[in-house]
């Protein structure tokens, strides 16, 4: 049984409400932090824990906090990024819906560590019912003296505001989020300056994911060193994975980052295998932006090692044979799924969500979508595959924000690993609109290069 830190009490009836949450050990971490620790000590604990940002990039949280500029007389802000719009990712929603007080407590401790007296939760507009849950939790926390002026007699003030977005994926990018929070059009800013220096209203700002901030609570509870014992290597602690697609038991799972991908998909404790006895064809292990992997590369790395559910192992082999942990949106495709159609659907998403500020992303995403639509509808040409490769190559890395990269990577990976399927679509257009390419050789074990002779 995997150990849990975030969702260990999620099953308790009424944990959404303050009384139940408090009775089950809630706000103990906040009490400990505010009354017996200094802000620097909290940051130090988070650094020790090795916690990495759960929003997708995996940047060490403690390090991010220590970059925050602290000029005199200028307010600092903490912003919680709850604009979870990545296709396939729905872990933050679960957290906010079921244990909102965990997030509030995490925000309280983090704001204390950063010296922020105002904290914003920027929540995705489509999560229409969650702001009510959060507002209720905030009101309860206020009533019980965990928010407002002079919290629990410690002299620390904090107010948390919930701000709803208007449903733009790009507002999950931290600088676009800040622009949107300021009431402007959600265009990503050009960096530098980074938000840690000039963020919200030109003041130093830290933007963290919901899960990252919630994870601060167990870190303070059990201590950074103890937290670092969970997981493997530099992937410490537990991670929420939202599994979806062709799975027997899709849903949000909290995993200790020490299990293998195979165990996660097939064991009864987690996803319970693929329904109807189908075989695994491909998987996107970290939300729609990360490269897709065929079954053989997903379960074993190119070196023939077991692939684990960790930041490092999923990234093993770089983009040539690896992928990324991303935000933990685990999308599984069985043998009946068409990779071309799937890629087209993602390209359509990124075309729709591009903000239109910089030219490669604005024009390139639409172009990729149209070419992919042609291939999918049996109107493609052989040269279209190379054209797609060329377009994605020229978008990647040349844009202001990572949305350009996120649009380019899925297309690049699909062509890299599933070129056969694209070619089959182009060469057999009539067949391609009627049936799928099937599993083909995508699950065959890969020949492992003999390890270099030991010196």
């Amino acid at each position, binding site marked *: 049984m995997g150990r849990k830190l975030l969702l260990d009490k999620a099953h308790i009836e009424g944990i959404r409400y303050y009384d139940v949450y408090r009775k089950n050990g809630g706000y103990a971490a906040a009490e400990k932090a505010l009354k017996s620790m200094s802000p620097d000590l909290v940051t130090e604990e988070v650094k020790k824990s090795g916690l990495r940002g759960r929003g997708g990039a995996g940047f060490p949280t403690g390090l991010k906090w220590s970059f925050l500029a602290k000029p005199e007389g200028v307010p600092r802000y903490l912003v919680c990024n709850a604009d979870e719009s990545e296709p396939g990712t729905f872990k933050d929603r679960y957290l906010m819906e079921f244990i909102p007080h965990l997030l509030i407590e995490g925000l309280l401790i983090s704001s204390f560590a950063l010296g922020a007296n105002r904290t914003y939760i920027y929540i995705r507009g489509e999560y229409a019912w969650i702001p009510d849950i959060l507002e209720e939790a905030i009101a309860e926390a206020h009533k019980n003296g965990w928010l407002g002026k002079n919290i629990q007699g410690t002299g620390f003030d904090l107010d948390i505001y919930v701000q709803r977005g208007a449903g733009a994926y790009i507002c999950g990018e931290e600088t676009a989020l800040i622009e949107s929070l300021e009431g402007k059009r959600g265009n990503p800013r050009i960096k530098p300056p980074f938000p840690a220096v000039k963020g919200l209203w030109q003041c130093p700002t830290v933007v963290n994911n919901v899960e990252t901030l919630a994870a601060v609570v167990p870190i303070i509870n059990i201590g950074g060193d103890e937290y670092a014992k969970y997981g493997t290597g530099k992937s410490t602690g537990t991670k929420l994975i939202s599994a979806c697609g062709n799975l027997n038991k899709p849903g949000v799972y909290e995993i200790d980052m020490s299990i293998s991908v195979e165990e996660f998909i097939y064991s009864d404790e987690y996803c319970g295998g693929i329904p109807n006895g189908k075989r695994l064809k491909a998987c996107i292990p970290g939300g729609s932006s990360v490269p897709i992997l065929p079954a053989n590369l997903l379960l074993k790395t190119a070196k023939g090692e077991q692939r684990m559910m960790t930041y490092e192992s999923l990234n093993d082999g770089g983009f040539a044979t690896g992928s990324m942990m991303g935000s933990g949106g685990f999308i599984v495709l069985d043998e009946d799924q068409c990779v071309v159609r799937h890629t087209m659907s993602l390209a359509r998403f990124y075309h729709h969500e591009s903000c239109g500020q910089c030219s490669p992303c604005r024009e390139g995403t639409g172009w990729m979508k*149209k070419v992919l639509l042609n291939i999918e509808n049996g109107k493609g040409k052989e040269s279209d595959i190379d054209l797609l490769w060329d377009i994605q190559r*020229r978008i990647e890395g040349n844009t202001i924000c990572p949305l350009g990269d996120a649009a380019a990577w899925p297309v690049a990976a699909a062509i890299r690993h599933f070129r056969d399927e694209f070619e089959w679509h182009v060469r057999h257009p009539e067949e391609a609109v009627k049936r799928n390419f099937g599993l083909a050789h995508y699950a065959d074990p890969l020949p492992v290069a003999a390890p270099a002779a030991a010196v």
Partner: protein
Amino acid sequence: MAEEKKLFKVTIDNIPVEVEPGTTILNAARMIGGDVVPPAMCYYSKLQGSGGKCRTCLVKVSKGSDADPRPMPKLVASCRTTVMDGMEVANITSPEVLDARKGVVEFLLLNHPLDCPVCDQAGECDLQDLSYEHGVSSTRYEFKRRTFDKIDIGDHIKLHMTRCILCYRCVFTADQLTNKREHGILGRGDASEISTYIKNSLDNDFIGNVIDVCPVGALTDRTARFKNRVWFLKPVDAHCTCDKCSGKAVLWMRGDEIFRVTARKDKYGEVEEFICDTCRFERKDAKDWVIEGPRKVSRHSVISQGHYVGTRKPQETIARVMDGRAPKLLMDIHSVSEVNMPAVDLSKIDGPAHSNDFPKNNGAQ
């Protein structure tokens, strides 16, 4: 003596230059000048916050600084990246940069209508220059280009959104020159468009400057639309006494007729001083202006065709090589044709040459 400022040493395409801290790579390259200057479609030195959007000015930073010599992982927008001491930048010496720039030009032209033959901007269009230098001759785009309806924003300005490359220059201009924010971007992605608040007309004394900052033909002057091609007009520097602006402008004339008034632009296509709408749209009579003299236009520009500035006639060498003797001509062309009539100097005619510029009776005055 004032305290000496420490200057940063930067190398751009192996050319060293010393600049003040806080200068952007693009401005450092402009100090060197010539071919190493990256093209800029959205950056405008007079507008705060502009730049970083079009991605044509991408350069490679092969060495971050003396203190931290690591190269930057990605190509950076030179208009928004400030220099560091000891930075090494590769622009035209990096094949990667040139390839990326080619890609950006292709993206910019993807949905551009390429209606240059009927576009008023043709001849002074940044996108034309850019695609001439970095673009390819044909497109790989096989789909319908996006189109928008033309709209009038105000009495004097026509917005032709189809041509727009979304550089945001006009948005910054309207924001920074005028006091009301009613000109901005609507929509998202490739459907985003420049528009005004509920199709309001723009009325401000300086709003006409959005025409000058537009790098393409998306914003044009309705008082000069379709009146004449820019290369048939002669730009002259002129000034007037104006209570709103400096009154320093360029008149685009043919004979005594003023077709268009614009602000004076430097060699990077940037306005030197913004002018007011009265000067731009209403002072179309030569009597309103004091003409200073012809505007210097780069001799590579199509605008300077037909009027050559500072040309030197080739030296007559025949007499010298023949020891002072005159050549013996079988036939003098001037005895039968009016071509090269010494009495008529084409470069000194106002406007294009007409038949009545030449004497009718075979040279005999």
